[in-house]
């Protein structure tokens, strides 16, 4: 995370990839414990990842990373359960007990982010789709839509922030 904050995008990507299975296992376990179906878990994982991304400046580089990460994860899991109107009981052990080794490597798709993507302004949606779905770089995306790279970065960031706000206030 330290090198990611220092501007190493590849290190950041690796870090997010490494924590995702842990978060997925924790989300499944939390849902199971609350008696909720596990099909919602990928939505929660994406919710957590967005919050981690947009709030990464609140991580103190002197402090351990795991408590920070799991505090965000726990918060988002509670939010998701509350939205479903269930009684909320999240055990901190759901997060503490998860070992990275026991999680399966996989990717899964979720509905909520995709659904909210449709409600974004055209420009932000285009940029997000180009980078997420078509795996285009910032530069290629800029060329495709005849925008400057700066404008692509701004649209990308605003799009992610807007997505997060929509998911939260849903």
């Amino acid at each position, binding site marked *: 995370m330290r090198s990611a904050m220092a501007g190493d995008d590849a290190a950041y990507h690796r870090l997010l990839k490494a924590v995702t299975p842990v978060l997925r296992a924790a989300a499944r376990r939390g849902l199971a414990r609350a008696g909720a179906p596990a099909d919602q878990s990928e939505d929660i994982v994406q919710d957590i990842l967005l919050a981690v991304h947009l709030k990464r400046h609140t991580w103190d580089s002197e402090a351990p990373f795991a408590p920070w990460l799991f505090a965000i994860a726990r*918060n988002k899991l509670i939010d998701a359960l509350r939205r479903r109107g269930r009684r909320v009981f999240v055990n901190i052990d759901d997060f503490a007990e998860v070992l990275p080794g026991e999680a399966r490597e996989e990717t899964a798709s979720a509905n909520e982010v995709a659904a909210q*993507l449709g409600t974004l302004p055209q420009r932000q949606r285009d940029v997000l789709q180009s980078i997420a779905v078509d795996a285009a770089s910032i530069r290629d995306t800029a060329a495709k839509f005849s925008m400057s790279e700066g404008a692509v970065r701004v649209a990308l960031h605003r799009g992610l922030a807007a997505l997060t706000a929509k998911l939260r206030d849903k």
Partner: protein
Amino acid sequence: MDTDQLLRTLAADNARHAPRVGAVLMLSLLVAAPLSILVFVTFLGMRPDVMTAIHNPFFDLKFAVTLSLAIPAIVVSLHLSRPEALMRGWGWLLLIPVGLLAVAIGGEMMMGPSMPMMTRLVGKNSRACLSSIPAMSLPLLAGALFGLRHGAPSHPALAGAIAGLLSAGLAATLYASHCTDDSPLFVATWYTLATALVSAIGALAGARVLRY
């Protein structure tokens, strides 16, 4: 969208660096402060005998009390803006003004006060105190909440209440230079009530706007 696609998108946005929460909080308080000061100069103003009042230790003590509320409350609110932060170990900071007031009340008792206790407690400005402090707090509270939105508090209502304390502490610092009631008994009663009101507003607002 599948999660791998989301990860790729987040990594592409890594170049964007957000400022620290403390910087954003300070900036938004600086933007809000002129509004509170405007309320102060328009409706209140400094008391006319301020130059002689400075020599009264109980007048000066009011500023010590209000600032010892505002500054620790800023520190605690920044602490709470981190998701993993707990109140444990930090709450005592907010007791500093309470301790100061207790010592001051004891001091006034021992010095043999000039007026009966109830007169000092009720004072002349209780109603002004109860309305002015919240009125001057509101712009600061809005600024504080705006700044703290940049953070990620796991307990938004609590963080909002602390934002209420910090804005009430700053507003009370202004108000203290207007008010002619200097008895610590007056401060302990009416400043506290006004602060509790602002803190409650902060908690209610925080629960809504500080979720991340």
